[in-house]
């Protein structure tokens, strides 16, 4: 079993909260939508506070920034690809290209980063930091978010 198979086998046994009557938003057409990335890679700028182990907060990332540190604490996934090309985790240049081509309406001015390694009950994420991040993106006029895991 290689490292990815081992981690997938482990992750598939973790508890996942259930959501009653989950919301389902019908967005406006893609060509009119503002898109943001939300990643669990714990990305942050060098001048922002680093993620601590077990960090349940989030960082906002300005659209123009590319000097981003992969702050996730797990040693169990491939980090080298991110060092080669941040778009493999955070496809910001691809979004800019799609906006320039008119495929999407706009790239959001700010994007969001969380740490993927959360406490099992994910209650802070669910009831505190998650809604706060969503409110920040709503304030920026975001219609659609793309969630990228590591």
């Amino acid at each position, binding site marked *: 079993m290689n490292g990815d198979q081992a981690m997938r086998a482990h992750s598939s046994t973790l508890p996942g909260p259930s959501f009653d009557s989950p919301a389902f938003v019908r967005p406006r057409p893609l060509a009119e939508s503002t898109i943001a990335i939300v990643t669990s890679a714990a990305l942050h700028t060098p001048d922002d506070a680093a993620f601590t182990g077990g960090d349940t907060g989030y960082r906002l990332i300005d659209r123009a920034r*590319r*000097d981003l540190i992969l702050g996730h604490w797990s*040693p169990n996934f*491939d980090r*080298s*690809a991110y*060092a080669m090309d941040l778009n493999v985790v955070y496809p910001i240049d691809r979004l800019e290209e799609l906006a320039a081509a008119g495929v999407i309406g706009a790239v959001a001015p700010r994007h969001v980063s969380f740490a993927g390694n959360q406490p099992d009950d*994910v209650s802070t994420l669910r009831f505190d930091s998650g809604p706060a991040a969503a409110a920040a993106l709503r304030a920026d006029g975001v219609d*659609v978010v793309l969630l990228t*895991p590591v």
Partner: protein
Amino acid sequence: MSVLAHVFEAAGIATIVLSSVREMAVKTAPPRALHCEFPLGRPLGRPGDPEFQHDVLARAFALLDAPVGPVLVDHPVAVESDAEQVSCTLPPRFEPGLAPAVDEAKGIRRAYDRVATRRGVTSVGRVINADGVPAAVASLVEIAEGADWRTAELPGGNTTALCHDIRSYYEEAALDLVTGPLPGPRALEDWFFERTETGRVVLAARDAIRKSGAKSPVWFYMAPATRSS
């Protein structure tokens, strides 16, 4: 990720998850998920391949057309995790008086610097910067050779963070040392732990700390779960 999808959707924002663990996507049923059987740490599949990344995005955004959810679709391409060995030349011994791992760490400094300059950012710095790597490696050598980790005064005092910095230093330097195609998934992990002096020292130090009776968080995350010395 799926939890966040539900949270954002409840706030009025449509969401698409790039799923990496299919069972979890089924269990938590985010409104829209594109399951990607890609190496972990590569949710867009392939670094340096804009065409492939755009294909992933196009399939993800296509899920927005679904009238009802949850929607779970599989990306048709599975990117294999099995790594081809990288060709990555380490410098020859320079200071024979030093432990091989410490000498090696010093020897790749210029490669590390070139990559850091090129990228404009480095992931080394959680508890030490590049200047601190040789001394940190020396501390791990002592532990691997029998010194008590509790009195070894490891820089930063956190083994997980310290080993993260050492490994990041090596993997970033490697990007300047590799020849041929971009390293595949986990190829640099294999290189670090199997073919560098310092990688072997990290595993040996981890093993020594474990055998000393330390609690698992002290040693477990010094290396991937699947690695042993």
